[in-house]
Every structure is written in structure tokens, then in C-alpha cells.
């Protein structure tokens, strides 16, 4: 929801970044306030996933210019794990498999690490088991998940649900969902979207990175941004996604870039 008095959670200015020496982001600006849901759309290669990974601090990406302020802090001062503890959460497009590590063990370590950093109570294995089972209901997950190795042998839909389960446990300030809808059938999409909707509130914010409009039928964004060649070239309300769906990304190119490029409310 948009509320002009809300606190700014994320402020990105003039962001340039390289991967393997190739410039991917070329002056990206974005402001996100608490309570808001932003969708970033764009063609493959436009830089949207790169932006998601840079927010989380992925070491393969090199920031060459620009600033990111997260919750009044310079984000670049924080290591990836410190960003996570401070409330930056990335739901991965391709969640990583970790053979031999039980999901419940991994989830509890993540939960307790973040809890202790925030000065909150840690849970022992039994308490955590009750707690996580409750959260799993939100995503209609089978309790068997807990005993399996992290993401190993999970279907695409199971992996994505596991990501949102982690989001539910870690209660981020800023959640970035990187193509969470890809590879999901319609039922899984509904469940995942429903989970995300229950986790959004006036104190946190969500960035949805997606290629398709269909996720936005379930999670309704306050803003839709279109990325191209490493910059946001158009920003509008939720209706923009529908127009993109109807006309394709070329429709924007037909538009006059100069009026909309980089403009943000």
C-alpha cells in the first residue's frame, strides 16, 4: 500500500555494476518505502536479476558507481550475511541444493542466527519444530520437507515454497523475490502468492522481479517498473503490467523514452 508518510526502506541512486567486466547496470534509481510492493519487469538480460543479487551482496557482481541506502545504512558497508541479519531477504530464482544437510537443521540455524542478531530469543530444536510446522501450514507444505536435505531432489514448486518458508521464518524488512513464479504451475503459484501476501504488512516492503504478468494477478503491486539495458525506463501503477502483457515489451520502446526514463514519484 502507498503511504507518502511511510519510512523509506531502500534508496538506490545511479547504480552501475559489472559482472565479468561487462556492465550490466547503467544508472539504476529506485525508492522503496515501507508497506509498498514493487514489481520490476523486463526482458531477459535487462539486469533485473543482477539488481536482485546486488542487493543481497552476491560476490560475483562488482558495483562501480552509485549508492544504496537500506534503512538509513549504507548497504555496501554490510557483508552479505550482515545484510540478511539486517532484514534483506532474497528468494532465489534457482535455490541451491545442499546434500546431507537436513532442512530443519538449516532453517533453525538461519532462524536462530538472525534472532540472536536482533536480540531476540533463540529456539531449541523442539520449540523450533512446533514453530516451523505452524509456518509450513501457510504454504501447504508436507512436514516431510523438514527431514529432507535442503532443496535436494525438490521439485521446482517445492523449492520455491521452501524459499517463501524461509521468508516467513526470517521476517525480512525488504524481501526480493527473484522470478519466484518461474517453473510454478497454477496451484503452486496460488499457494506461494498467498503466502507472500500474508507476510507483507505496513512495516516491510517487497520487490517482485518477474518476467510475466501472471504473478501480479495474485500479488498486486503498488508500482510496476520496466527495466531495459540496466536502467528503469518506465514506472507506473499496476495497470502497466497488463499493458505489457497485452502489447509486449516492444510497446514501451515505441513510446518516447525521454519522458519516462528514470522517473520516480
Amino acid at each position, binding site marked *: 500500500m502507498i503511504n507518502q508518510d511511510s519510512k523509506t526502506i531502500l534508496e538506490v541512486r545511479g547504480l552501475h555494476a559489472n559482472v565479468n567486466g561487462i556492465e550490466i547496470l547503467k544508472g539504476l534509481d529506485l525508492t522503496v518505502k515501507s508497506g509498498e510492493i514493487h514489481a520490476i519487469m523486463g526482458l531477459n538480460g535487462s539486469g533485473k536479476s543482477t539488481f536482485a543479487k546486488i542487493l543481497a551482496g552476491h560476490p560475483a557482481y562488482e558495483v562501480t558507481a552509485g549508492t544504496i541506502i537500506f534503512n538509513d545504512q549504507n548497504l555496501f558497508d554490510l*557483508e552479505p*550475511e550482515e545484510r540478511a541479519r539486517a532484514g534483506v531477504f532474497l528468494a532465489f530464482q534457482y535455490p541451491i541444493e*545442499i546434500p546431507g544437510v537436513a532442512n530443519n537443521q538449516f532453517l533453525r540455524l538461519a532462524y536462530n542466527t538472525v534472532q540472536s542478531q536482533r536480540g531476540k530469543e533463540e529456539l531449541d530444536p523442539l520449540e523450533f519444530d512446533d514453530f516451523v510446522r505452524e509456518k509450513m501450514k501457510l504454504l501447504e507444505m508436507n512436514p516431510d520437507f523438514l527431514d529432507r536435505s535442503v532443496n535436494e531432489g525438490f521439485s521446482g514448486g517445492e523449492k520455491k515454497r521452501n524459499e517463501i518458508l524461509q521468508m516467513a521464518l*526470517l521476517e525480512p524488512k525488504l524481501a526480493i523475490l527473484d522470478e519466484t513464479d518461474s517453473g510454478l504451475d497454477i496451484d503452486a503459484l496460488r499457494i506461494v502468492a498467498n503466502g507472500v501476501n500474508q507476510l507483507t504488512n505496513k512495516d516491510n516492503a517487497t520487490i517482485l522481479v518477474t518476467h510475466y504478468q501472471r504473478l501480479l494477478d495474485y500479488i498486486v503491486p503498488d508500482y510496476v517498473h520496466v527495466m531495459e539495458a540496466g536502467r528503469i525506463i518506465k514506472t507506473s501503477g499496476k495497470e502497466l503490467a497488463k499493458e505489457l502483457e497485452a502489447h509486449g515489451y516492444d510497446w514501451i520502446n515505441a513510446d518516447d523514452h525521454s519522458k519516462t526514463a528514470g522517473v520516480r514519484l
Partner: protein
Amino acid sequence: MSAVLQNLVNQPYKHGFVTEIESDIAPKGLNEEIIRLISSKKNEPEWLLAFRLQAYEKWLSMSEPQWQNVNYPKIDYQSISYYSAPKPKKKLASMDEVDPELLRTFEKLGVPMHERAALAGVAVDVIFDSVSVATTYKEKLAEVGIIFCSISEAVQTHPELIKKYLGTVVPVGDNFYAALNSAVFTDGSFCFIPKGVKCPMDLSTYFRINTEESGQFERTLIIAEEGASVSYLEGCTAPKFDTNQLHAAVVELIALDNAEIKYSTVQNWYAGDEKGVGGIYNFVTKRGLAKGVNSRISWTQVETGAAITWKYPSCILRGENSVGEFYSVAVTNNYQQADTGTKMIHIGRNTRSTIISKSISAGYSNSSYRGLVRIAPTAENARNYSQCDSMLIGDQCGANTFPYIQVNNNSAKVEHEASTSKIGEDQLFYFFQRGIGAEEAVSMIINGFCKEVFQQLPMEFAVEATKLLSFKLEGSVG
């Protein structure tokens, strides 16, 4: 990891293990005279001298194996001194005298308190109010008729058992290093579990650690009579240093009908510095004979130290329905080299074997699994399952798998699976993104990778081994 700890692991042991040069030391070089000297110094019976001399004869006709996937400068066997009088280690009066940095390493590894004392060279009696742990255990074992002592002691007190079993599993001319060991071994452990006795506790070399150094040519012999069982633990997680570079040990296990021997090793010899200078050459021959029906030999090893490791703990499955198991984790970092695996020789009917090998390579190290599964024509319905997984950390290390399978009986079932994975940037980043730091992330990944092997270790040992691995690999990831 802090530079302090890194340095500590790589520095020579300050206390206990290194003593001043003794005067009672044999001149360098190996010849018949030296072997006679060793035998007479140890007051050995004539047959044992004959055993040594026979081994020496064999050794002279052999040449050092070249087939293993390791590189090292040629060893000059004539520049080694093969005998020095057993030297009691200098004892410290209390834990206060121990180097505080050493204590911090123990703390980090989670070595239990009484072991820390023993390892640091503090007299255990001082710590435990004059009640020696070792003595207490010895009395308890004697009650059920178990013999557990040094092999030199056993030669004097139970010569008939030594004569009956020594060299029956690893013959004197088995291989170059075994022959050398048979000629010049100085000490080691002897363990005898009589008929029907289940050893009431895990036998550990910890108990013997404070007596005297066993030297570079260690010899171990373990016998479990009919229906007996024992779990034996060798080594410890604390870093172990030695001035001798070459270590050529021999371990023989014999299990009679329905007997079970479980042999677990945690090896953490000095591995050389981060540039690959120094470090122990660990060339070991370990073999178990599952002689009786329904007998079982199980090897579990966690190899983390030594500059070069060359060992293949093996099982000869002669008894009908006998079982052989090999569970191994080998970790190499910096310039370490490991060529390790097992041999499962199926001779009896319905014999079964399992091989689970996990190797983790980091830095510039190289790790090879080399294993043989042989099904003899007599081994009806033999079964083997092998799984070899390698994990690479960084892009300068290597891992190889050399499985040899020889099947001479059509009823056999042999399965082999292998995999190679990498602790990559992405895997670590996933942990970081969930708030988990590098140290815990690596520990969790490694532990998950090695789970099937660690499950085989006695619990305390498993906890220590987990910490040891993380400790060894710290700084090599991320």
C-alpha cells in the same frame, strides 16, 4: 580464521613430544646388524629376530612403489636412524604450565579435558587426584580377560599369541613399506579379546599416549576370538608432530567366527606448511582378516593430516557370510597429497562389503580414491556396494577415483557410484543470504557431505572430527 591458530597448527609441538636427543640412538642406516641390535635391545625371542631378518631380506629385493598418484623426493633409507631407546616424555606438573595457545586450539577442537592434559604432556595423575585413568581402564579390562598393552610388552608376556598371529594378515614381504616395518618396527599396540567377550568400552590409544612414543614404524595387532567384539580408536584430533618424516605403520586385525572388530582412525599428523614444506609421509598398511563365519571388520578413517597419505585399509573376507566395511573421509589442503582407499577381497560365500569414501580437497592439494573389489571364484553370492564422492574447494585442487573391480564369480553383485561436487560461491552465498556466516556454513556443508562416515564414529569422536574438518578448511573457502 585467526592467524594465530593457523600458525599454531603449523608450528612444531613445543611440549612433550620433542625431547632432547638421547644418547641411546642407533647409527643411521639399515643393515642386519641394526636389526639384531633392535631385537636384542628389546630382548626379543629368536623367532621374532628371524621374522625381522626375513622381512629385511624381502625388503632388499623390493623397490618403492611408483604407481600411486603422489609426488615426493626420493627417500634415502640409509639416512634414517632405526632405533632409539624409548624415551619417557617430559611431564608437566599442571595445566598451568601448558602453552595457552595450545589450550586454545584444544578448546576450538573441543578436545575433552582429560585428553588435553594427556596430549599436552601433563601427568594425568596430577589432574585426576592421583587416580590414573589409564590404570583404571586396564584393571577393568583385565577383569574380563582382555589384553591391551604395547606390542613390546606383549612379546614378553604373551609370546605365543604374537607368534601365532603376527604377519599372518600382512606377510613380511607384502609390500615395500610393510616389509620395512616388519624388519624394524619398534612398538605399537596389542589387543586380544578372548572368546565370547564384548569389550565393555572403546579401546583408545589415548590410554597409551602418555607412556612413551611408539616411533615411526608402529605395529598394531588386534585379535577378536570367536564371538568377541571390540571397537578400537586410533589417533586423536589434536595436531600431532614428529621429527621423523617417514611413517610406515602396519596394522593387522583378525576376527574369528562371529567376531567383530571396528577400527576407527582420526589422523592429524603434521601436514607441512602452507607452501608444502615439511610434513609427514604416512605410508601405512592396514588389513583385516575376517577369518571366521559371520565375522565383521569395519574400518572408519578420518584422514586430515600428513603431507602424503598412502593407505588402503582392507578386508579379506574369508569366512562365510563375513562382512567388510570401509568408511573414509580424506581432507587435503594446501599442498597435501592423499592416495587412499581400500581393498575388499571376497573369498567366502555370501560375503558382503560396503565402501563409502568421501574426499574433500582444498588449496593446491590432490586426493585420489583407489579401491579394489575382488570377487574370487569361491565367493558365491558376494555383494559389494561402493560409493565415492569428491568435493572440491577452489579451482587449484584435484580429485581422482581409481576403482578396480575384478569379478570371477557370476553370482556376484557389484555396484559402484561416484560423484564430484564443489563448494561453490553460490552455495556459500545461499547460507550468507540466510544470515549464516562462513564458518558455520562450511562446517554444515562438510558435515552434511561426510554424514554417512561420521555416523560410523563413536559419538565424541564424531563431534571432534566435525570440528577438526572445519578447522582444517577454515580460510580455504570464500
